[in-house]
């Protein structure tokens, strides 16, 4: 990014000065100088365009892991007020609606699992459907899928996938309000009939990780984390159903914007007023897809438990938290001293409620919400806690991952999948995947340094670091 186009607000946040006569909201970019230097100028272009959308409240923002996306940048956060003509945008959520991470904690330690690491990796690879073209073990009909779309993780629990305690630790207790399965097309539903309980491909993964370092002892205690502990992170979303909804509504909202007289700075920002028929239809479908994603991760969590139960009988996996990072959520926020109901878009950004937030489970009420920054394959991930100041800074939002630093094409030219996996194995990380091409595209070197992203997230006041996780097993699509 050309840093001459932005001005520092402090060491960890930046703004884009308005040109003379330019009418738009403020733009805020969170991150270090070093991280911003590596971002594409398109990030700046995209978030500045978001700042021109109607009904925006406060600034259009990017998180420290931001990179060039479609419509909104990945790592983009923007809140809109329906009472002031605010919009909802399919490009502000992304195609993989409610993609997110389920983190499970165990009472196992690294020495406990090392003797069985290979068979554990092999069994997870066998039992967790992953990769392009891989269907799941569950086959639904359309009426049952409608129940998934209305019920979310609670539906999965009713089918025997999970434990009752799980739901308390899933956003919105595992069921998004406002889901309208009737606003999901027949094709989107057909795509999902055989896809429940599948991981997908690309940057999705299941990792067995260990806690290398605790950085905030008090929050770690609340989260049930200790050094040397084994945890499992599952990163995936709403699969074919979400993709179909995203693609269909992107085009229909682009047309609606023209019809409803919304002047878009770029067509890719396809959107409609929240209170319009088109906006409400998208929100109904999007919330249905959110429930699909929550149910999907609930099923995968239970499949993982079964594998662990086989290898480590008597040791359970408890849900630490399940948080989505491609969302538009209706939330109350304090804006200039007044509580307002806003539609907060977080595209590749995680909700990060601070201590005392009423939507947090009692166990985390003092520490703040667990925030998960998933790192690149074979490197590391962070668990953070939401802060009080993040509310004023970014509508309680934080980074979601390491963020790409290199295109997939460039990564393919630089790395070879098989050699990469061998190298990771020599460094103690077992990767299981059907796609060597996918592995090369997801090479750790193709991503930003997750440590720099987590540090910038904390220094910017968005969330504070609690624990550093290192992978031992990675199941990739």
């Amino acid at each position, binding site marked *: 990014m050309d840093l001459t186009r932005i001005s520092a607000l402090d060491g960890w946040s930046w703004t884009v000065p308005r040109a003379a006569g330019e009418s738009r909201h403020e733009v805020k970019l969170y991150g270090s100088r070093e991280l911003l230097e590596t971002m594409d100028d398109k990030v700046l272009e995209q978030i500045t365009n978001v700042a021109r959308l109607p009904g925006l409240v406060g600034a259009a923002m990017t998180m420290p892991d931001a990179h060039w996306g*479609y419509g909104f940048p990945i790592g983009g956060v923007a809140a809109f007020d329906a009472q002031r003509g605010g919009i909802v945008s399919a490009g502000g959520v992304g195609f993989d609606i409610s993609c997110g991470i389920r983190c499970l904690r165990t009472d196992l330690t690294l020495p406990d699992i090392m003797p069985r690491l290979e068979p554990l990796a092999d069994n997870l690879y066998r039992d967790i459907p992953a990769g*392009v073209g891989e269907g799941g073990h569950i086959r639904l009909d359309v009426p049952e899928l409608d129940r998934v779309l209305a019920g979310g993780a609670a539906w999965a629990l009713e089918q025997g996938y999970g434990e009752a305690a799980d739901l308390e630790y899933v956003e919105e207790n595992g069921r998004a309000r406002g889901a309208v399965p009737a606003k999901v097309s027949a094709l989107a539903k057909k795509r999902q009939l055989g896809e429940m309980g599948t991981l997908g491909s690309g940057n999705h993964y299941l990792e067995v990780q260990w806690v290398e370092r605790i950085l905030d002892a008090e929050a770690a205690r609340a989260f049930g984390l200790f050094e040397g502990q084994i945890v499992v992170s599952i990163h995936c979303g709403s699969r074919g159903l979400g993709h179909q909804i*995203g693609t269909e509504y992107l*085009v229909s909202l682009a047309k609606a914007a023209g019809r409803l007289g919304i002047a878009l700075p770029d067509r890719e920002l396809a959107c409609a007023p929240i209170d319009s028929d088109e906006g409400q239809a998208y929100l109904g479908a999007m919330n249905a897809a959110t429930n699909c994603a929550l149910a999907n991760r609930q099923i995968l969590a239970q499949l993982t438990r079964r594998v662990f139960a086989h290898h480590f009988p008597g040791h359970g996996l408890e849900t630490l938290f399940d948080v989505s990072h491609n969302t538009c959520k209706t939330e109350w926020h304090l804006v200039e001293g007044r509580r307002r109901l806003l539609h907060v878009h977080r595209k590749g950004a995680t909700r990060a409620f601070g201590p005392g937030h009423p939507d947090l489970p009692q166990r985390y009420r003092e520490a703040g919400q667990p925030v998960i920054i998933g790192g690149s394959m074979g490197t590391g991930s962070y668990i953070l806690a939401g802060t009080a100041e993040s509310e004023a800074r970014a509508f309680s939002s934080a980074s979601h991952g390491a963020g790409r630093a290199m295109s997939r*094409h460039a990564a393919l030219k630089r790395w070879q999948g098989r050699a990469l996996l061998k190298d990771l194995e020599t460094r103690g990380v077992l990767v299981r995947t059907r*796609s060597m091409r996918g592995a090369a595209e997801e090479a750790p070197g193709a991503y930003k340094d997750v440590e720099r992203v987590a540090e910038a997230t904390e220094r910017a006041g968005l969330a504070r670091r609690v624990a550093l996780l290192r992978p031992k097993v990675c199941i990739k699509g």
Partner: protein
Amino acid sequence: MPYFEHDADVGVVGRGASLEQAFVAGAEAVFSLITRLEGIRPLESVEVQFEEADAELAFVTWINQLLGHAHENGLVLGKFELEHEGERWRGRGWGEPWRDEMERGVDVKGATLTMLSVAQTDGGWEARCVIDV
């Protein structure tokens, strides 16, 4: 190369003597991300039909309908045909169910409106957009 650079996703380009050929080339570029097209047997097909006056939105709809129907039927597609008359577009994609020996690339989520353009060039037509993977 039928691709252009994008940080997280992939930009695809379809070029052809006619608009329809450019769209077909775009579909080939997209499905090449999923697996190698060589060796895919045209054993089954999916039909795509839609009405769209805007050529750019037609390109996105063509790609996304192919992806949707391929996924719905558990197929991987390797050969495409398309014709249109005014706003009416009608096409078909041929392929077969996944086989174990096929190379697994990435799951393509869909075509986006980013960097979307359909334009006449000296040699014919060119269609391009960013694909979410």
